[in-house]
Protein backbone atom coordinates (compact mmCIF):
# COMPACT_ATOMS: atom_id res chain seq x y z
CA UNK A 1 0.00 0.00 0.00
CA UNK A 2 1.31 3.37 -0.97
CA UNK A 3 1.72 5.81 1.82
CA UNK A 4 0.78 9.36 1.02
CA UNK A 5 4.30 10.68 1.49
CA UNK A 6 5.64 8.33 -1.13
CA UNK A 7 3.47 10.07 -3.69
CA UNK A 8 5.15 13.38 -2.98
CA UNK A 9 8.11 13.52 -5.32
CA UNK A 10 11.18 14.59 -3.38
CA UNK A 11 13.00 17.32 -5.21
CA UNK A 12 16.70 17.70 -5.00
CA UNK A 13 17.43 21.32 -4.25
CA UNK A 14 20.65 23.27 -4.26
CA UNK A 15 22.02 24.36 -0.89
CA UNK A 16 20.61 27.61 0.40
CA UNK A 17 22.83 30.66 0.29
CA UNK A 18 23.09 32.29 3.72
CA UNK A 19 22.70 35.69 2.06
CA UNK A 20 19.31 34.60 0.78
CA UNK A 21 18.20 33.65 4.29
CA UNK A 22 19.33 37.02 5.61
CA UNK A 23 17.50 38.78 2.76
CA UNK A 24 14.25 36.96 3.49
CA UNK A 25 14.51 37.76 7.18
CA UNK A 26 15.03 41.45 6.43
CA UNK A 27 12.09 41.36 4.05
CA UNK A 28 9.96 39.79 6.79
CA UNK A 29 11.00 42.50 9.25
CA UNK A 30 10.09 45.12 6.65
CA UNK A 31 6.71 43.50 6.10
CA UNK A 32 6.10 43.58 9.85
CA UNK A 33 7.12 47.21 10.04
CA UNK A 34 4.74 48.38 7.32
CA UNK A 35 2.29 50.91 8.70
CA UNK A 36 -0.53 48.46 9.43
CA UNK A 37 -3.51 49.91 11.16
CA UNK A 38 -7.13 49.27 11.95
CA UNK A 39 -8.46 45.93 10.78
CA UNK A 40 -5.34 45.22 8.77
CA UNK A 41 -3.47 45.05 12.03
CA UNK A 42 -5.63 42.15 13.18
CA UNK A 43 -5.28 40.42 9.84
CA UNK A 44 -1.52 40.87 9.69
CA UNK A 45 0.35 37.63 10.21
CA UNK A 46 3.63 37.86 12.05
CA UNK A 47 5.87 37.57 8.99
CA UNK A 48 9.04 37.29 11.03
CA UNK A 49 7.63 34.35 12.98
CA UNK A 50 6.53 32.73 9.73
CA UNK A 51 9.92 33.08 8.04
CA UNK A 52 11.85 32.05 11.15
CA UNK A 53 9.68 28.96 11.37
CA UNK A 54 10.18 28.24 7.68
CA UNK A 55 13.96 28.35 7.90
CA UNK A 56 14.01 26.40 11.16
CA UNK A 57 12.08 23.64 9.44
CA UNK A 58 13.95 23.72 6.13
CA UNK A 59 17.45 24.56 7.30
CA UNK A 60 17.66 23.81 11.02
CA UNK A 61 21.45 23.84 10.86
CA UNK A 62 21.69 27.31 9.36
CA UNK A 63 19.12 29.37 11.18
CA UNK A 64 19.10 28.83 14.86
CA UNK A 65 18.15 30.32 18.13
CA UNK A 66 20.51 33.25 18.02
CA UNK A 67 19.00 34.71 14.87
CA UNK A 68 15.44 34.10 16.10
CA UNK A 69 16.23 35.69 19.42
CA UNK A 70 17.91 38.76 17.91
CA UNK A 71 15.01 39.26 15.52
CA UNK A 72 12.70 39.07 18.51
CA UNK A 73 14.65 41.85 20.21
CA UNK A 74 14.38 44.02 17.10
CA UNK A 75 10.62 43.44 16.98
CA UNK A 76 10.35 44.39 20.63
CA UNK A 77 12.10 47.67 19.97
CA UNK A 78 10.06 48.43 16.88
CA UNK A 79 6.83 47.74 18.74
CA UNK A 80 7.95 49.61 21.81
CA UNK A 81 6.96 46.65 23.90
CA UNK A 82 8.76 45.09 26.83
CA UNK A 83 12.18 43.76 25.97
CA UNK A 84 12.25 40.03 25.48
CA UNK A 85 8.66 39.09 24.82
CA UNK A 86 9.06 38.51 21.09
CA UNK A 87 12.55 37.18 21.74
CA UNK A 88 11.11 34.53 24.05
CA UNK A 89 8.28 33.69 21.67
CA UNK A 90 10.59 33.37 18.67
CA UNK A 91 13.07 31.21 20.60
CA UNK A 92 10.29 28.80 21.50
CA UNK A 93 9.09 28.88 17.90
CA UNK A 94 12.61 28.11 16.68
CA UNK A 95 12.81 25.22 19.12
CA UNK A 96 9.53 23.80 17.87
CA UNK A 97 10.65 24.21 14.27
CA UNK A 98 14.02 22.53 14.88
CA UNK A 99 12.55 19.65 16.86
CA UNK A 100 9.75 19.03 14.37
CA UNK A 101 11.67 19.64 11.17
CA UNK A 102 12.14 15.98 10.21
CA UNK A 103 8.46 15.30 10.71
CA UNK A 104 7.15 18.39 8.95
CA UNK A 105 9.46 18.00 5.98
CA UNK A 106 7.89 14.60 5.27
CA UNK A 107 4.49 16.07 4.64
CA UNK A 108 3.24 17.81 1.55
CA UNK A 109 2.34 21.47 1.76
CA UNK A 110 -1.26 21.21 2.96
CA UNK A 111 -0.59 19.01 5.99
CA UNK A 112 2.40 21.21 6.71
CA UNK A 113 -0.04 24.05 7.18
CA UNK A 114 -1.72 22.04 9.91
CA UNK A 115 1.61 21.99 11.73
CA UNK A 116 2.39 25.62 11.10
CA UNK A 117 -0.89 27.14 12.28
CA UNK A 118 -0.69 25.71 15.83
CA UNK A 119 2.94 26.78 16.07
CA UNK A 120 2.08 30.35 15.05
CA UNK A 121 -0.80 30.28 17.52
CA UNK A 122 1.64 29.18 20.20
CA UNK A 123 3.81 32.16 19.30
CA UNK A 124 0.81 34.48 19.67
CA UNK A 125 -0.24 32.90 22.94
CA UNK A 126 3.21 33.42 24.46
CA UNK A 127 3.17 37.11 23.56
CA UNK A 128 -0.41 37.37 24.80
CA UNK A 129 0.46 35.72 28.12
CA UNK A 130 3.37 38.06 28.70
CA UNK A 131 1.22 41.07 27.87
CA UNK A 132 -1.57 39.95 30.15
CA UNK A 133 0.86 39.24 32.97
CA UNK A 134 2.17 42.78 32.66
CA UNK A 135 -1.29 44.28 32.92
CA UNK A 136 -2.85 44.47 29.46
CA UNK A 137 -6.40 43.47 28.72
CA UNK A 138 -7.34 40.55 26.52
CA UNK A 139 -7.59 42.14 23.08
CA UNK A 140 -10.34 39.84 21.78
CA UNK A 141 -10.30 36.70 19.72
CA UNK A 142 -9.55 38.56 16.50
CA UNK A 143 -6.01 38.65 17.84
CA UNK A 144 -5.54 35.08 16.61
CA UNK A 145 -6.72 35.70 13.03
CA UNK A 146 -3.20 36.67 11.99
CA UNK A 147 -1.87 33.20 12.76
CA UNK A 148 -4.43 31.54 10.52
CA UNK A 149 -3.60 33.94 7.73
CA UNK A 150 0.08 33.22 8.31
CA UNK A 151 -0.72 29.52 7.97
CA UNK A 152 -2.62 30.21 4.78
CA UNK A 153 0.45 32.01 3.42
CA UNK A 154 2.64 28.97 4.12
CA UNK A 155 2.23 27.32 0.67
CA UNK A 156 3.05 30.60 -1.07
CA UNK A 157 6.11 31.11 1.08
CA UNK A 158 7.35 27.58 0.69
CA UNK A 159 7.08 27.87 -3.10
CA UNK A 160 8.68 31.32 -3.24
CA UNK A 161 11.56 30.54 -0.91
CA UNK A 162 12.37 27.31 -2.76
CA UNK A 163 12.62 29.03 -6.14
CA UNK A 164 16.26 30.18 -5.84
CA UNK A 165 17.28 26.66 -4.81
CA UNK A 166 15.79 25.02 -7.89
CA UNK A 167 18.62 23.76 -10.07
CA UNK A 168 18.65 25.46 -13.44
CA UNK A 169 18.00 22.93 -16.16
CA UNK A 170 21.30 21.96 -17.70
CA UNK A 171 21.25 22.95 -21.39
CA UNK A 172 23.55 20.05 -22.32
CA UNK A 173 21.08 17.52 -21.02
CA UNK A 174 17.95 19.16 -22.27
Amino acid at each position, binding site marked *: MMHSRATVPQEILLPVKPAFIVATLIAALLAN*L*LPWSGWW*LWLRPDFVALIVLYWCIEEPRTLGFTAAWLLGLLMDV*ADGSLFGQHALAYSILAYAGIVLHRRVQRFSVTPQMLHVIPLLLLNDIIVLLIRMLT*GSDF*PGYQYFIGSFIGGALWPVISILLKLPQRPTPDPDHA
Partner: protein
Amino acid sequence: MEHQAPPFFKTGPTPLTRLLIFAFVSLALLVTDARFKYLDTLRQIAAVIVYPLQRIASAPASIARRAGDFFVTHSSLRNENARLVQKSLASAALLQQFESVRAENAQLRALLGAREKVAVKSLLAEVLYAARDPFSRKIVVDKGSRQEVTGGQPVIDQFGVIGQVTRVYPWLSEVTLITEKDHLVPVLNVRNGLRAVLAGTGTDGALELRFVPLNADFQNGDRLVTSGIDGVYPPGLPVAEISNVERSAAFLFARITCKPLAGVNANLHVLIVSAERQIPQRPPEEEKPARRKKTRKGG
Protein backbone atom coordinates in the same frame (compact mmCIF):
# COMPACT_ATOMS: atom_id res chain seq x y z
CA MET B 1 23.16 0.61 33.31
CA GLU B 2 22.98 1.46 29.68
CA HIS B 3 25.93 3.24 28.27
CA GLN B 4 25.17 5.94 25.75
CA ALA B 5 27.54 6.10 22.82
CA PRO B 6 29.17 9.45 22.20
CA PRO B 7 27.63 11.26 19.21
CA PHE B 8 29.31 10.97 15.85
CA PHE B 9 28.95 14.62 15.01
CA LYS B 10 29.54 17.42 17.39
CA THR B 11 26.59 19.79 17.05
CA GLY B 12 26.91 21.75 20.21
CA PRO B 13 24.29 21.75 22.92
CA THR B 14 20.96 20.08 22.20
CA PRO B 15 18.03 22.22 21.07
CA LEU B 16 16.41 21.87 24.47
CA THR B 17 19.50 23.22 26.23
CA ARG B 18 19.66 26.12 23.82
CA LEU B 19 15.98 26.81 24.26
CA LEU B 20 16.43 26.89 28.01
CA ILE B 21 19.37 29.28 27.72
CA PHE B 22 17.56 31.66 25.38
CA ALA B 23 14.31 31.46 27.31
CA PHE B 24 16.17 32.26 30.48
CA VAL B 25 17.91 35.26 28.93
CA SER B 26 14.60 36.50 27.51
CA LEU B 27 12.86 36.16 30.84
CA ALA B 28 15.73 37.94 32.55
CA LEU B 29 15.41 40.77 30.02
CA LEU B 30 11.66 40.91 30.54
CA VAL B 31 11.95 41.16 34.27
CA THR B 32 14.76 43.69 34.11
CA ASP B 33 12.84 45.82 31.64
CA ALA B 34 9.58 45.62 33.53
CA ARG B 35 11.05 46.23 36.97
CA PHE B 36 14.23 48.20 36.75
CA LYS B 37 14.34 50.07 33.41
CA TYR B 38 18.08 49.51 33.06
CA LEU B 39 18.00 48.55 29.42
CA ASP B 40 17.80 51.92 27.76
CA THR B 41 21.22 51.70 26.11
CA LEU B 42 20.45 48.27 24.68
CA ARG B 43 17.15 49.58 23.40
CA GLN B 44 18.84 52.59 21.83
CA ILE B 45 21.33 50.36 20.02
CA ALA B 46 18.59 48.09 18.70
CA ALA B 47 16.57 51.15 17.72
CA VAL B 48 19.41 52.45 15.59
CA ILE B 49 19.57 49.08 13.84
CA VAL B 50 15.85 49.02 13.13
CA TYR B 51 15.60 52.68 12.16
CA PRO B 52 16.48 52.33 8.43
CA LEU B 53 14.03 49.46 8.13
CA GLN B 54 11.33 51.53 9.77
CA ARG B 55 11.94 54.38 7.39
CA ILE B 56 11.93 52.09 4.36
CA ALA B 57 8.77 50.39 5.52
CA SER B 58 6.92 53.63 5.99
CA ALA B 59 8.28 55.16 2.79
CA PRO B 60 5.65 53.78 0.36
CA ALA B 61 2.80 55.24 2.36
CA SER B 62 4.41 58.64 2.74
CA ILE B 63 5.44 58.74 -0.94
CA ALA B 64 1.88 57.87 -1.93
CA ARG B 65 0.63 60.64 0.33
CA ARG B 66 3.00 63.17 -1.16
CA ALA B 67 2.10 62.10 -4.68
CA GLY B 68 -1.56 62.51 -3.69
CA ASP B 69 -0.78 66.00 -2.41
CA PHE B 70 0.84 66.85 -5.72
CA PHE B 71 -2.19 66.01 -7.79
CA VAL B 72 -4.74 68.25 -6.12
CA THR B 73 -7.12 70.18 -8.24
CA HIS B 74 -6.97 73.89 -8.75
CA SER B 75 -10.44 74.46 -7.33
CA SER B 76 -9.80 72.52 -4.14
CA LEU B 77 -6.63 74.54 -3.60
CA ARG B 78 -8.54 77.80 -4.16
CA ASN B 79 -11.25 76.72 -1.75
CA GLU B 80 -8.72 75.78 0.86
CA ASN B 81 -6.87 79.04 0.35
CA ALA B 82 -10.07 81.06 0.80
CA ARG B 83 -10.92 79.12 3.92
CA LEU B 84 -7.45 79.64 5.36
CA VAL B 85 -7.49 83.37 4.63
CA GLN B 86 -10.81 83.66 6.41
CA LYS B 87 -9.51 81.63 9.32
CA SER B 88 -6.34 83.65 9.55
CA LEU B 89 -8.34 86.89 9.63
CA ALA B 90 -10.54 85.50 12.36
CA SER B 91 -7.58 84.34 14.36
CA ALA B 92 -5.69 87.61 13.79
CA ALA B 93 -8.37 89.42 15.73
CA LEU B 94 -8.16 86.84 18.50
CA LEU B 95 -4.39 87.00 18.44
CA GLN B 96 -4.39 90.74 18.96
CA GLN B 97 -6.62 90.31 21.95
CA PHE B 98 -4.41 87.50 23.11
CA GLU B 99 -1.32 89.69 22.94
CA SER B 100 -2.85 92.34 25.10
CA VAL B 101 -4.31 89.80 27.49
CA ARG B 102 -0.97 88.09 27.77
CA ALA B 103 0.78 91.34 28.53
CA GLU B 104 -1.84 92.11 31.12
CA ASN B 105 -1.57 88.64 32.55
CA ALA B 106 2.20 88.90 32.81
CA GLN B 107 1.84 92.22 34.58
CA LEU B 108 -0.71 90.84 37.00
CA ARG B 109 1.44 87.80 37.66
CA ALA B 110 4.40 90.04 38.30
CA LEU B 111 2.25 91.94 40.73
CA LEU B 112 1.24 88.76 42.44
CA GLY B 113 4.77 87.47 42.41
CA ALA B 114 3.67 84.24 40.78
CA ARG B 115 6.34 82.49 38.84
CA GLU B 116 4.31 80.97 36.08
CA LYS B 117 6.14 81.01 32.85
CA VAL B 118 4.76 79.17 29.91
CA ALA B 119 7.08 79.56 26.98
CA VAL B 120 5.62 77.11 24.56
CA LYS B 121 7.86 75.93 21.78
CA SER B 122 6.62 73.35 19.39
CA LEU B 123 8.06 70.98 16.87
CA LEU B 124 6.13 69.58 13.94
CA ALA B 125 6.55 65.85 13.58
CA GLU B 126 5.23 63.38 11.08
CA VAL B 127 3.54 60.23 12.29
CA LEU B 128 5.50 57.31 10.88
CA TYR B 129 3.16 54.61 11.96
CA ALA B 130 0.47 54.05 14.51
CA ALA B 131 0.31 51.30 17.08
CA ARG B 132 1.21 48.14 15.27
CA ASP B 133 0.69 46.43 18.53
CA PRO B 134 -2.94 45.60 19.28
CA PHE B 135 -2.27 45.93 22.99
CA SER B 136 -1.06 49.46 23.21
CA ARG B 137 -2.11 52.84 21.92
CA LYS B 138 1.12 54.35 20.71
CA ILE B 139 2.39 56.16 17.67
CA VAL B 140 5.92 56.62 16.43
CA VAL B 141 6.89 60.03 15.10
CA ASP B 142 9.93 61.06 13.09
CA LYS B 143 11.60 63.43 15.56
CA GLY B 144 13.91 62.20 18.24
CA SER B 145 16.65 63.19 20.64
CA ARG B 146 18.61 64.66 17.72
CA GLN B 147 15.83 67.25 17.42
CA GLU B 148 15.86 67.80 21.16
CA VAL B 149 12.74 65.87 21.93
CA THR B 150 12.75 64.68 25.50
CA GLY B 151 10.64 62.18 27.31
CA GLY B 152 7.49 63.50 28.89
CA GLN B 153 6.72 66.22 26.37
CA PRO B 154 3.05 66.58 25.51
CA VAL B 155 1.97 66.00 21.92
CA ILE B 156 -0.99 67.84 20.46
CA ASP B 157 -2.81 68.30 17.18
CA GLN B 158 -4.94 71.22 16.09
CA PHE B 159 -7.84 70.19 18.33
CA GLY B 160 -6.15 69.16 21.51
CA VAL B 161 -3.89 66.79 23.38
CA ILE B 162 -3.22 63.43 21.81
CA GLY B 163 -0.57 62.08 24.13
CA GLN B 164 2.85 62.26 25.62
CA VAL B 165 6.36 61.32 24.47
CA THR B 166 7.33 58.24 26.41
CA ARG B 167 10.47 56.97 24.73
CA VAL B 168 13.04 58.86 22.74
CA TYR B 169 15.36 57.30 20.20
CA PRO B 170 17.98 59.22 18.23
CA TRP B 171 15.73 59.93 15.26
CA LEU B 172 12.35 58.70 16.40
CA SER B 173 10.21 58.94 19.43
CA GLU B 174 7.34 56.99 20.78
CA VAL B 175 4.18 58.79 21.82
CA THR B 176 1.77 57.12 24.21
CA LEU B 177 -1.74 58.25 23.36
CA ILE B 178 -4.19 59.42 25.98
CA THR B 179 -6.37 56.43 25.11
CA GLU B 180 -3.69 54.00 26.32
CA LYS B 181 -4.93 51.99 29.23
CA ASP B 182 -4.17 53.70 32.54
CA HIS B 183 -2.57 56.73 30.96
CA LEU B 184 -3.53 59.63 33.18
CA VAL B 185 -4.08 63.30 32.37
CA PRO B 186 -5.03 65.76 35.09
CA VAL B 187 -7.89 67.86 33.75
CA LEU B 188 -10.13 70.73 34.63
CA ASN B 189 -13.77 71.17 33.75
CA VAL B 190 -13.97 74.41 31.77
CA ARG B 191 -17.54 75.13 32.88
CA ASN B 192 -16.89 75.18 36.59
CA GLY B 193 -13.20 74.61 37.20
CA LEU B 194 -13.60 71.24 38.89
CA ARG B 195 -10.45 69.16 38.73
CA ALA B 196 -10.30 65.48 37.97
CA VAL B 197 -8.06 62.81 36.53
CA LEU B 198 -8.75 61.51 33.05
CA ALA B 199 -7.66 57.98 32.32
CA GLY B 200 -7.38 56.05 29.09
CA THR B 201 -9.33 52.84 28.78
CA GLY B 202 -7.34 51.06 26.09
CA THR B 203 -10.09 51.38 23.51
CA ASP B 204 -10.10 54.03 20.82
CA GLY B 205 -12.26 57.05 21.40
CA ALA B 206 -13.11 56.39 25.02
CA LEU B 207 -11.67 57.93 28.15
CA GLU B 208 -12.98 57.91 31.68
CA LEU B 209 -12.87 60.32 34.57
CA ARG B 210 -11.73 58.55 37.65
CA PHE B 211 -12.59 59.05 41.27
CA VAL B 212 -15.28 61.64 40.75
CA PRO B 213 -17.75 61.75 43.65
CA LEU B 214 -21.37 61.00 42.80
CA ASN B 215 -22.53 64.52 43.49
CA ALA B 216 -19.81 66.32 41.54
CA ASP B 217 -21.08 68.69 38.89
CA PHE B 218 -20.10 67.04 35.62
CA GLN B 219 -22.56 67.04 32.75
CA ASN B 220 -22.73 65.72 29.25
CA GLY B 221 -20.98 68.03 26.83
CA ASP B 222 -18.62 69.58 29.38
CA ARG B 223 -15.21 70.30 27.93
CA LEU B 224 -12.13 69.21 29.81
CA VAL B 225 -8.80 70.97 29.48
CA THR B 226 -5.46 70.11 31.02
CA SER B 227 -5.12 71.56 34.48
CA GLY B 228 -1.34 71.62 34.41
CA ILE B 229 -0.88 70.53 37.99
CA ASP B 230 1.18 67.54 36.99
CA GLY B 231 3.85 69.75 35.47
CA VAL B 232 3.79 67.64 32.31
CA TYR B 233 0.99 69.12 30.28
CA PRO B 234 0.85 72.89 30.05
CA PRO B 235 -2.46 74.17 31.42
CA GLY B 236 -5.40 74.94 29.18
CA LEU B 237 -5.00 72.46 26.34
CA PRO B 238 -8.32 70.93 25.34
CA VAL B 239 -8.44 67.20 25.97
CA ALA B 240 -11.89 65.69 25.92
CA GLU B 241 -15.59 66.18 26.05
CA ILE B 242 -17.86 64.34 28.44
CA SER B 243 -20.12 62.00 26.51
CA ASN B 244 -21.89 60.05 29.20
CA VAL B 245 -22.41 60.44 32.92
CA GLU B 246 -23.75 57.52 34.89
CA ARG B 247 -24.52 57.89 38.55
CA SER B 248 -25.50 54.88 40.50
CA ALA B 249 -25.75 54.73 44.23
CA ALA B 250 -24.27 51.26 44.11
CA PHE B 251 -20.84 52.68 43.32
CA LEU B 252 -18.68 55.07 45.24
CA PHE B 253 -17.81 57.14 42.21
CA ALA B 254 -19.68 58.35 39.16
CA ARG B 255 -18.91 56.62 35.89
CA ILE B 256 -18.05 59.36 33.45
CA THR B 257 -17.10 58.51 29.91
CA CYS B 258 -15.43 61.07 27.68
CA LYS B 259 -14.54 61.40 24.05
CA PRO B 260 -11.13 62.75 23.09
CA LEU B 261 -11.30 66.02 21.16
CA ALA B 262 -8.14 65.50 19.16
CA GLY B 263 -8.09 63.01 16.34
CA VAL B 264 -6.08 60.72 18.57
CA ASN B 265 -5.29 58.19 15.91
CA ALA B 266 -6.18 59.96 12.71
CA ASN B 267 -3.30 62.36 12.27
CA LEU B 268 -0.49 62.63 9.80
CA HIS B 269 1.24 65.45 11.60
CA VAL B 270 1.43 66.30 15.26
CA LEU B 271 3.06 69.00 17.33
CA ILE B 272 5.48 68.11 20.07
CA VAL B 273 5.17 70.89 22.59
CA SER B 274 7.90 71.76 24.98
CA ALA B 275 6.50 73.82 27.74
CA GLU B 276 9.31 75.22 29.74
CA ARG B 277 7.67 75.97 32.98
CA GLN B 278 9.35 76.86 36.15
CA ILE B 279 7.79 74.59 38.61
CA PRO B 280 8.48 75.40 42.20
CA GLN B 281 10.72 72.90 43.88
CA ARG B 282 8.99 70.00 45.45
CA PRO B 283 9.13 70.55 49.17
CA PRO B 284 11.53 68.19 50.90
CA GLU B 285 9.95 65.15 52.43
CA GLU B 286 9.05 66.03 55.93
CA GLU B 287 10.11 63.66 58.58
CA LYS B 288 7.12 61.96 59.95
CA PRO B 289 6.50 63.27 63.42
CA ALA B 290 6.57 60.55 65.95
CA ARG B 291 3.03 59.55 66.67
CA ARG B 292 1.80 60.98 69.83
CA LYS B 293 -0.35 58.72 71.82
CA LYS B 294 -3.86 59.89 71.84
CA THR B 295 -4.95 60.81 75.23
CA ARG B 296 -8.41 59.60 75.64
CA LYS B 297 -10.67 61.68 77.63
CA GLY B 298 -13.45 59.88 79.25
CA GLY B 299 -14.61 56.41 78.56
